[in-house]
């Protein structure tokens, strides 16, 4: 696992977009799908920058800098998550045989926890990169109104 602070040299445009009033969020009834062993009825809002079918969303171009900095890779899916004081989303893996990276959009007391006990705190412009096979869970914040992250899954070339 690798944690990189101040990941994006130009972080402000992305933060302004995702934390602003004009960015569309889409409601999901739960973070994990019904039937998942860790399913909990905790809703979240998401926004897909890159869908699993390879289709890109209207704001995909905002991801280019992050993709470039992640190195020689093939992005598989990219989405933003917005949660508001829900609790622990539940352990899961995003996909198998790939790499997961999480970019934290705001500083809050929410965090990402891993089954080995390690925790990565939500610090603005921090990126954590880890093997997609590592089970992890997002824990929402209690010290503010929302926690926003961007989740990347990609194959290394």
């Amino acid at each position, binding site marked *: 696992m690798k944690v990189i602070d101040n990941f994006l040299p130009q972080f402000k445009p992305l933060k302004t977009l995702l*934390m*602003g*009033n*004009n*960015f*569309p*969020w*889409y*409601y*999901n*009834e739960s973070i994990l799908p019904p039937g998942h062993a860790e399913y909990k*009825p905790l*809703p979240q*809002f998401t926004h897909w920058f890159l869908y699993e079918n390879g289709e890109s969303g209207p704001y995909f171009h905002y991801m280019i800098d992050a993709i470039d900095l992640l190195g020689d890779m093939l992005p598989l899916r990219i989405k933003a998550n*917005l949660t*508001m*004081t829900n609790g622990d989303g539940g352990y899961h893996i995003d996909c198998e045989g790939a790499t997961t990276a999480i970019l934290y959009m705001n500083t809050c007391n929410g965090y990402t926890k891993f089954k080995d006990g390690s925790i990565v705190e939500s610090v603005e412009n921090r990126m954590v990169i880890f093997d997609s096979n590592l089970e992890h869970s997002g824990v929402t914040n209690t010290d503010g*109104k*929302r926690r926003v992250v961007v989740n990347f899954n990609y194959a290394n070339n």
Partner: protein
Amino acid sequence: MQIIDRFLDPYEYGLLRKVFLEDHDFPWYWRDSILLEGDDDYQLLHWLYKDGAPRSDHFDNIVPILDKLKIGALCKVKANLNHRTEEIKEHGFHRDQDWKGVKTCVYYVNDNNGYTLFEDGQKVDSKGNRAVIFDGMTSHAGSTCTDEKRRIVLNINYYPIER
């Protein structure tokens, strides 16, 4: 104040529920406050009509409501989504408009234990397919809910045909 239950017929209400509650392609926009900048509240909203024109691809979905309201001139329409909270949180009293003759209609999309509170103490519960219509200069306050994941209402300000 007028409270009308079963405001839309079941078919129309079903279509509306699908758009606001079931479809995954309905966009919501974050607001970091509800009444005053810097307040403790937040909500997600979606403008359907503002500044004299529809502002949403989903405007057509609310036309059945507008038809029933006998609207002379529409001022604004927005959908509000309030996330479940551990305890019901009342937002502050406010008036939607300060223009004489304007009516406010709050249309409740889903059942939940949130409500609209009026300064005289009256409380209108959030019941799906209920509309409450009142003078736009009447102070009122919305709330969150604790028994559902979200509370969704439509807020419509308009001049009625008969003024």
